[in-house]
Structures are given as C-alpha cells and as structure tokens.
C-alpha cells in the first residue's frame, strides 16, 4: 500500500517529532508483546513432549488421563505427579515418589529401574497466568517481590507481573475500541448537527445535553446488577454514554466550515451534501477532532480503572489495573503493589498522550517541522 502525498508528509512530520515517534515505537512494542501474553505468562506449559508426541497445553485441553494419570479433569501441570508422569512417560512409579522418579528419568532414562521414554515440559517465561492462585510456600499474600514473583503477588496470591501484562492488554484494547466507536458516532453526529445547523442543531443539542447528564455510574450499577459485567458490556456502556464527548468539537468545526467559501463553491457545483461533509469539511475539521482523541483514549483507560477500583467494573478474576490499585490501597504494607500500579498507569498514559500529540501536530497543515 502506498501512502498518498499528503499522508507521506504527515508521516514525515510525525517522525520528526522524536518524542512522539519513540513513544509510538515503545508503545507498539509493549502492546505487541502484550498481545502474546498467553505465550509470555501462562500457568500451563507451552509445549509438552509425552512419549515422543508433542502437545501444546496452553491452547488445548488435556486431561490427566492423557498423560497416564487417573483423573479425566484437566491435568494440573504444577503438581509433582503430573510433571513426573510427563517426564517418565507415564510410569506408575510416579504416584509413589514423584520427585525421585522424575529426577531418575531425567538422568538415566529409567523409572524404578525400568527404561521409559523421556519427556519434557517447556514453560512460559512467567509460569503463572493472571488468575493462577499460587502456593506461596508459607509467605502471606500479598507477598513482596522475590525471584519467583518478580513484582510479588497480590492479596489472592496471584502473580503481579502476569496480571500487569494481561491488564495492560485489556486496558489498551478497551480504550482503543471505545475510542474508535465513540469517534465514529461522535463525528457523524457532530457533522450532521453542525452542517445542517438550524432546527436540527437546536433539537439535537438539547437531546445531547439531556443524554450526557445521565448519571452514568448509577446506570452502570443497575446494569451490573441485571447482567454479569463483562468486557463487551462495559465497552457498550462506555460508548453509549461516551459518544457525546466529541460531538461538541466536531459540531463547532462544521458550523464554522459550512460557511467557508469553498464549501459554498462545492454547493454551487451541485456536490451532494454527504460528499461535502466528508470530503470537504471533515478533513479540515480533523485537526480539532484529533486534538480531542488523546483525552478520549486516556479517559477510557481511567474510567475502566475507576470502575474496577470502585468494584463496578470487570469481575475480579479478570486482570484489571484498577483492581490492582484498589489492592494497593488496601495493602499498604506491600508498597510494590502501589508502585507497580502507579508506574503502569503513568507510562501507559504518558506514551498515549505523546503519540496523539504527535499525530495532531502532524495533521496540522500550518505547523512547520524542522
């Protein structure tokens, strides 16, 4: 795909803003990595070799019976017995002395004297998922950072690193989806309102005033009481109550632009209204619109965090940075929680704001760059 001349210029402009450019690279890297969170932090092994056959438990279900055990439930890969069964090719000796047999199979290739097919387990770099409840071996939860849990664990002894990785992905995805949807609706509504003006504008503006003064939190609490809160429901609620944010700016831009001479010229040519709106006016209203976007993105992230903090957001088994913040408040004896939450939010929001600032400047035709 080749960029048009104008977009090439915008890209060059964007790149010449070093802070925005490096923020974009860093953010893309972080978000890209977090998209592969399942490979990065998982309590099920990435790959298992059992009797020479390879299995990928992080994407597929395997019962303990598949590895020569008794239960038809999912294999508990953390347990010494299952680990021994895999490593010793399903030897029944594992049920007596799992650790010893596993060590024997690894060194000599036998189990209780009999030769077995050796197996292995490949773990993710962080062998905990966001909802793994870990055995802290006597430590009380939340625990401080140590070599197994780099940022410690939270008050349900879940690994904080894993939760931050998954939580980052969830927050950013949420923000991007909400921003995209609210922008589309908001720009469309603002465009119609501003372009046609008059009675359309008057009526629509009153409707928006009433709508945007709805107490969102109460509605959310009611909705959460009726249905179990989930990601898409929360996205839907945020869009339904958030689209009015952009309308004002877009409307103002269209009200201004509809009397521009080139819009009049297009009208005199007989260009249809929708083409005038989206080909002539919108591109020129884009700078003001883009100015609002960073606020919408960071607003979406913080509103998700706020709801989680207050307990009206996502259920607590989902990875949430807001819930981490709440735990930090409740567990002042473990400051690692608070620092983690603070730096995650600070870095995430700063990067996003820097990026959108760069985008806005790059779209401004009157701005010159070195």
């Amino acid at each position, binding site marked *: 795909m080749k960029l048009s001349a104008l977009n090439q210029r915008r890209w060059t402009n964007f790149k010449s803003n070093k802070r925005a450019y490096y923020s974009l690279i860093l953010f893309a890297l972080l978000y890209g990595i977090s998209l592969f969170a399942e490979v990065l932090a998982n309590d099920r092994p990435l790959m298992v070799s059992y009797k020479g056959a390879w299995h990928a438990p992080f994407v597929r279900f395997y019962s303990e019976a598949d590895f020569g055990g008794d239960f038809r439930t999912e294999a508990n890969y953390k347990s010494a017995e299952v680990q021994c069964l895999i490593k010793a090719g399903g030897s029944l000796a594992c049920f007596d002395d799992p650790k010893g047999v596993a060590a024997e199979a690894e060194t000599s290739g036998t189990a209780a004297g009999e030769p077995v097919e050796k197996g292995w387990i490949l773990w993710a770099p962080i062998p905990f998922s966001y909802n793994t409840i870990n055995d802290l071996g006597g430590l009380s939860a939340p625990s401080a950072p140590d070599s197994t849990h780099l940022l410690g664990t939270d008050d349900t002894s879940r690994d904080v690193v894993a939760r931050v990785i998954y939580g980052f992905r969830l927050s950013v995805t949420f923000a991007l989806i909400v921003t995209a949807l609210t922008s589309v609706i908001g720009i469309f509504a603002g465009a119609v309102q501003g372009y046609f003006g008059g009675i359309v504008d008057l009526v629509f503006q009153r409707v928006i005033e009433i709508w945007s003064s709805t107490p969102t939190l109460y509605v959310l609490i009611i909705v959460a009481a009726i249905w179990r809160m989930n990601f898409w429901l929360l996205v839907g609620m945020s869009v339904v109550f958030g689209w009015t944010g952009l309308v004002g700016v877009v409307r103002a831009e269209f009200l201004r632009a509809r009397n521009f001479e080139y819009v009049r*010229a297009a009208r*005199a*040519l007989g260009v249809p209204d929708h*083409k005038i709106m989206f080909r002539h006016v919108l591109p*020129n209203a884009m700078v003001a619109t883009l100015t609002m976007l960073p606020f919408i993105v960071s607003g979406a992230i913080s509103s998700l965090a706020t709801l989680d903090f207050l307990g009206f957001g996502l259920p607590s088994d989902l990875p949430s940075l807001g819930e981490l913040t709440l735990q930090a408040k409740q567990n002042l004896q473990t400051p690692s929680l608070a620092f983690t939450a603070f730096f995650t939010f600070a870095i995430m929001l700063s990067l996003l704001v820097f990026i959108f600032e760069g985008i806005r400047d790059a779209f401004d035709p009157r701005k010159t760059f070195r």
Partner: protein
Amino acid sequence: MTALLKVQDLRVTFHISREGDMPWTRPRPLHALNGVNFSLAAGETLGIVGESGCGKSTLARAITQMVAAQGKVVWNGTQDLLALSRHEMLPYRANMQMIFQDPLASLNPRMTIGQIIAEPLKTHHPNLSATEVRARVQLWMDRVGLLPNQINRYPHEFSGGQCQRIGIARALIIEPQLLICDEPVSALDVSIQAQVINLLADLQRDLGLAMIFIAHDLSVVKHISDRVMVLYLGRVMEVADRAALFAAPKHPYTQALLSAVPIPDPIKERAKQVIALTGDLPSPMSPPSGCVFRTRCSKATEICARVIPELLGDSHQVACHHAA
C-alpha cells in the same frame, strides 16, 4: 429569441431576530432583493454594480439557489428554476457555474489542484474514466494558463491570480452556458485583474458563454460588459447597454457613481464635478418609503417619498421620477 435566463420579480428576504428577543417575537424581515427583473441572452455579459450591501452577491446566490428566493428564474424560456427541488436542479447546475470573490478561500486547502478542477466532472459526469477526467483537467489547466506540473500542488502554493485561474477552470470544465462571477477580481492586484479579465473575455468569446459579472469597480464592468445593471438597496435603479449607460446615465445614483470614477488625467480629474452622496446606505431592515434612493438624492421631491418608481424604458430602463 428567448432569453437564456429571465429573472422576474426576484425577492430574497432574510429574517433577522435580535439578541434578547422573546421566542414568540416574529423575526424582522430584511429585503435583500426586492423585485429584481432582468433577462440575459446567450453569449451576453451583464455587469451588475452597486455599493456594498446592495444585494449583488445575494442576487448571484439566489440564481444558483444557495439562498431561498421568491419570484421566477426562467431558464431558456421554459423552466422556472425556483420551482425545482434540489435534485431536479442538478442538471441545470451543470449549465450554471460560479466564480467567487476570494480565490484562495473558494478552494479546499486539503485538495490538490487536479482534484479541485475534476470535482465538477465527477459530480455531473460520474461515468467518465479516470484517464478521461485527467485529460480534461489538463486541457483546462492549459486553457487557463496553468502549468501541467502544478496538478498535484495545493491551493496555498499559488498566488491569488493563479487561484482565480483554478476557480475559472473548475467552473468551465463542465462547459456551462452561464457563468456567474461574484466579484472575481476584487481581491486581486490591478495588474492581475487585467489578466484575469482578459482570460474571462477570451474564454467567453471562444465558448459563447453568457456571464453575469458582479463588481463594484466600474472600470472593470465597463471593460467586460455588454449591458450594465445598477442595484441599490435590493432594487434595480437602471439597466442599459454599456455605451449608453456610461455615456448618458439617467438615474441620479448612476450619475453619482460614475462621477466618482477617477480619470487617469490630473487636469480632467481636477476639473471634474463629483456628485458626492451624503450619508450612508439606509438600513435594509427599514428602507425609505417610495424611492429607496430618495434619502441621498439631490433631486428628491415630494413624490419620491410616496410612489415607488417603476423601471421604465425599452433598451435603457431607469427607475426614477426625475430621470434625466
């Protein structure tokens, strides 16, 4: 011969509500155009002159239906354009194009020259192939004196004169029969004005265009028009052939306007008798009774306040009780 465009009793009324009016207070009418009549033959140029606020631009916008108007605008002796819906109007728009006062402002800053000039083609002939569109755009860029390599530039990279050439190319690419020029040269330098006027005159001769040429510069109007119409406060004061009007203006207002044109000869200029108009243009919200010009007219008598003068005469029409 039927006229290409016949305007009958054209009225444009704006409704103005004042700041702080109650919602039930009826907005006050402002008669921007009050019963304008004229006709335009194919290939003819009608110059329209008048002070600021006399309704020149409103007239152009009323004909192109950019403001709501009452009366009749008859195209080719058959179709009343004001009776048409927006959609039905579309084929007529292709025959009726406009050039604007501020050349740069009338071009979308985010579109290239090629896109701007091609837009009317794409609107009125959507079936043309991309190569055909491009060929026509280049043909017209050449005709108005733009270089072919400028096709991908943006409006702000051009001077005012060049922008007006772009505007002319855009207006003429779909080969209209009528071109409405709303003060096309007022924003340009005098030397550039001459170039643009000559370009317009050449194109008009080649294409057999009819033109409505709005200006407040009488020398420009004198140069390009076949007939001249003088507007004052939304009413026609005088319509005549160019030669007749400039040689022997009959309406006191026209006389005053013409006497204000500077003569490029200091001796004659000093000897010239200027008829100075006193006072400002009256508010169009409350125009004077009778003849609208009477408040500033040196010849005004009692009848002027009572009776609205009609536009009388055959080839040289004038609306004055005391026409010279």
